[in-house]
């Protein structure tokens, strides 16, 4: 950290709360324009290419890949997640602007999958990040991914996709779990 400290925030984030018709309009709009970080953590990212390009064409449903986490709404954990990648994923997730959603692809983030005895791949993702939609399969086909995104849209539309609120409320618990496996925590306590 050191001289980079001015770029980071150590304070906890605030939770945006507004209700009524504005919340309803915002949720309606958000569900129809999901931007996904172009970031693949494991083998599942190979299925995202046909999903987002012309074969299955997720862009007709309002989804597209964007280059930076600041522009994005959705983070896809695509397949196995190693400890080394988890550090980067936490930074990407915390740089995204609220409201933000996490979609976990495949068996590995659920319970380890075929990497259940790996020395380096985590077994449960929801100890470290709040997950809104799980898509099972090893790997899930693009049809399954589209079905999962349809579910995510329903959740957002009805105001039930509140993983980012849970993350802010239970930040201490999540941070404790993250620090349990990331021994050398070099990041600030909260890095926007």
């Amino acid at each position, binding site marked *: 950290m050191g001289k980079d400290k001015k770029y980071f925030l150590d304070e906890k984030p605030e939770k945006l709360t507004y209700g009524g018709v504005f919340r309803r309009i915002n949720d309606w709009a958000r569900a129809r324009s999901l931007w996904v970080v172009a970031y693949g953590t494991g083998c599942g990212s190979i299925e995202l290419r046909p999903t987002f390009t012309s074969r299955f064409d997720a862009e007709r449903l309002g989804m597209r890949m964007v280059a930076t986490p600041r522009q994005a709404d959705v983070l896809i954990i695509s397949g196995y997640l190693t*400890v*080394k990648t988890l*550090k980067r994923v936490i930074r990407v997730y915390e740089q995204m602007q609220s409201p933000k959603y996490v979609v976990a692809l495949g068996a590995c983030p*659920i*319970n*380890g999958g075929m990497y*259940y*005895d*790996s*020395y*380096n*791949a*985590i*077994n*449960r993702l929801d*100890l470290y990040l709040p997950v809104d939609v799980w898509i099972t399969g090893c790997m899930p086909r693009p049809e399954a991914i589209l079905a999962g995104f349809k579910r995510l849209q329903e959740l957002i539309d009805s105001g039930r996709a509140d993983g980012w609120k849970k993350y802010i409320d239970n930040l201490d618990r999540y941070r404790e779990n993250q620090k349990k*496996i*990331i*021994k*050398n925590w070099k990041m600030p306590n909260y890095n926007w």
Partner: protein
Amino acid sequence: MEVLNRLREKFEITGDKVQRDDLALVETTGKDLIPVLVYLKTYEGFKTLVMISCVDWMEKGKFQLSYNLWNPEKKKNIIVKIFLDRENPVFQTIYKIWPQAEVYEREIHEMFGVNFEGNPTQDEELILEDWEEIPPMRRDFNTLRYSMEKFGEREPKSGIIIRKQISEQYDEWRRK
């Protein structure tokens, strides 16, 4: 391959085998490995180092290092093997012969704990960050137990019991 005859005349070769028409295995001693590699590169046209791999022979107390070379003109492979002592695995670096060997040696150092003397970057972390246990690709490292202790469980209790049994069986088998 006739290159084996020339190698047998010049160096101390403890074993050799022709696996296929285009693949031969040569076993030599640590003292002779670098002369053999230099000879193969300079005079026999094995210009490319394909990879270096490591095998853990726990029962024999040895580590095997395999240097896989490729002759692009004659389309032939040759694998040069040496055995190191498992308790104190130290060998010389060959990155001055092939610069790409530096990264392979760094990975073997991280995964098996073999020391390559003279390699400038072998202590930098390649894949594992903040690793505190014994190197994970050694066969006496129990990955299942490590994973259970570090990453927790997400299964019914019967599954946990079965996994613990497997882990204990592994330990018993290792002690034999």
